[in-house]
């Protein structure tokens, strides 16, 4: 297990390094940010001075190593537009994104687990079909569109919830539903498949034969064995939600990291985009690592 873990860690580290190199390379090719900031009126001397001030005149390898060294110390430089350090900017927006992701996770689990279990317990009945339709619809609906529909119905027409912003907890309900539903189908399908597999095993038949109640069989024996791959997938889906939050935060005007990413990309605020991409990558790869370890713990065959 230690060997397996250290191998996975080394791979994760290498992947992160590659990702940082790719994003750096991608964004340094982003044309002349300096003249964009300086404006049309700036003279060539002023542009050159600004370039030196921002440290953009060195060779890209030098700048990459410098950026990497600073990033490892938690210093991602300054935003080109906000005149604030990137680290501060992200730290201020992070709580909103985490709250959104947390609430979306709750929505996703409260939809996918009960429906997946019910569908497995009563296959080919109306419950199963309902669960399947919910999954199929969720996969086909563009999440920004679903978010806008929720906004029109529950905020603009019924007036139950605020349409946009991130001031109170109420602001997060609609976006959390939109984002949570979007992440539901794979988890529900895996729950269903896992439960069907477990319910067909000998020990469940034994438990039933012993005369244990249905709820006891379902929750005590079946769920416990079916849940671990679901937990692993949930970890990965949580990482996907961080990406999905770019769209949903923009729709609902939530001042989170996703919205910041979109703003910064449209303005080519390179230091901010770079920092967010590498942080999302690290978060994602950590979650994949967690899910791999969970899977390995479940299945000793992988460990070898």
């Amino acid at each position: 297990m230690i060997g397996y873990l250290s191998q996975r860690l080394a791979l994760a580290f290498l992947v992160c390094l590659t990702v940082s190199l790719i994003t750096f390379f991608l964004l340094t090719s982003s044309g002349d940010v300096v003249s964009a900031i300086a404006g049309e009126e700036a003279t060539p001397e002023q542009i050159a001075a600004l370039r030196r001030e921002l440290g953009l005149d060195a060779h890209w390898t030098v700048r990459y190593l410098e950026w990497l060294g600073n990033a490892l110390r938690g210093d991602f430089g300054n935003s080109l537009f906000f005149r604030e350090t990137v680290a501060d900017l992200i730290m201020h927006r992070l709580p909103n994104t985490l709250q959104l992701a947390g609430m979306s996770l709750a929505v996703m689990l409260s939809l996918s687990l009960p429906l997946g279990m019910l569908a497995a317990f009563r296959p080919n009945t109306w419950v199963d079909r309902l669960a399947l339709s919910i999954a199929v619809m969720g996969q086909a609906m563009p999440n920004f569109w679903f978010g806008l529909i929720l906004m029109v119905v529950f905020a603009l027409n019924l007036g139950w919830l605020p349409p946009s912003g991130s001031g109170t907890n109420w602001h997060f309900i609609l976006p959390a539903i939109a984002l949570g539903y979007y992440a539901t189908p794979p988890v529900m399908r895996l729950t269903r498949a896992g439960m069907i597999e477990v319910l067909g095993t000998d020990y469940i038949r034994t438990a039933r034969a012993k005369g244990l109640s249905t709820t006891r069989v379902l929750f005590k024996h079946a769920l416990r064995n079916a849940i671990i791959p679901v937990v692993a997938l949930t970890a990965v889906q949580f990482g996907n939600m961080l990406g999905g939050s770019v769209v949903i935060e923009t729709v609902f005007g939530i001042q989170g990291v996703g919205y910041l990413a979109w703003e910064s990309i449209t303005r080519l605020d390179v230091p901010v985009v770079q920092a967010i991409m590498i942080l999302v990558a690290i978060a994602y790869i950590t979650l994949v690592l967690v899910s791999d370890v969970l899977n390995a713990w479940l299945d000793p065959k992988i460990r070898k």
Partner: protein
Amino acid sequence: MTTVNVPGRETSGQPAATDPASAPSGSTARARWRDRDFPRRALKHSAFLVGCSILVLILLMALIAPLIAPYDPYSQSMANRLVPPIWMDGGTWDHPLGTDGLGRDYLSRVIYGSRISLLIGTFTVVCSGLIGTTLGVLAGYFGGRVDLVINFIIMTRLTLPVIMVALAVVAIVGSSLTVVILVLGLLLWDRFAVVMRSAVMQVRNQEYVQSARALGCSTPYIIVREIMPNIFGSLVVIATFEMANAILLEAALSFLGLGVQPPLPSWGLMVAEGRNYLLFDPWLIMIPGFAIFLLVLAINLMGDGLRDILTPENRN
């Protein structure tokens, strides 16, 4: 051995919609594809039929768009702004789906929009399919070091957030239909690679491959003639899901303003433009959004159906 985790993309867990007993699990996907039973099984699969019918209708609509669209999708008419669709008060048969904020006929724009979505879906899948299948087949067939390197590439790709990379590239390079297709084509190959890799691993030690090797067939010959036909079923199934994925991503990119640019009638862009009239004219976002939903639903239903019909061993 390293395993690659594909988030939210597991192929199991597919509810069995056809009778599994009708497909002998020992036969190969190739046999099933050419099987005389294929039409019979397809006709029995109602979700597959529904998906196919919707898709054929949308395809037809895209092909004969100039013949059926009542107006030019670009011609503006300030006198006819925001005419509501026919089922609402004030709707007329002149504009069955109404007009947008610039007075352009909405039905014509929706009809022409199908061309953009289908174009993006098709070309993205061709591009990503080529990359992903090549990587997956190489990794699966050769294993060892090749597999290790390709696994690392797959892992790196999975770690990059698609939507952010696509947005950034489009912001840097500038947005056009071609750029969107290329970006998505170069990003969405991961599932092809992962599934092809494991599919090839499954068949590479089958007897017919070993006998081809014993006969002295060259590696390219074995891959093209013995391996590819047998993983073709899985390939088609992934292609449908990736097509749906690409269409959704294009819609999201266009919605965020970094995809297809105005005045092109991209459905995602139409939803973005309709946002300005969210309060009083919500149908402006409902109609193009529903079009995306319908197209993606049709493709997914067809993909689910194909998976049931072609690769019963992938079901639970």
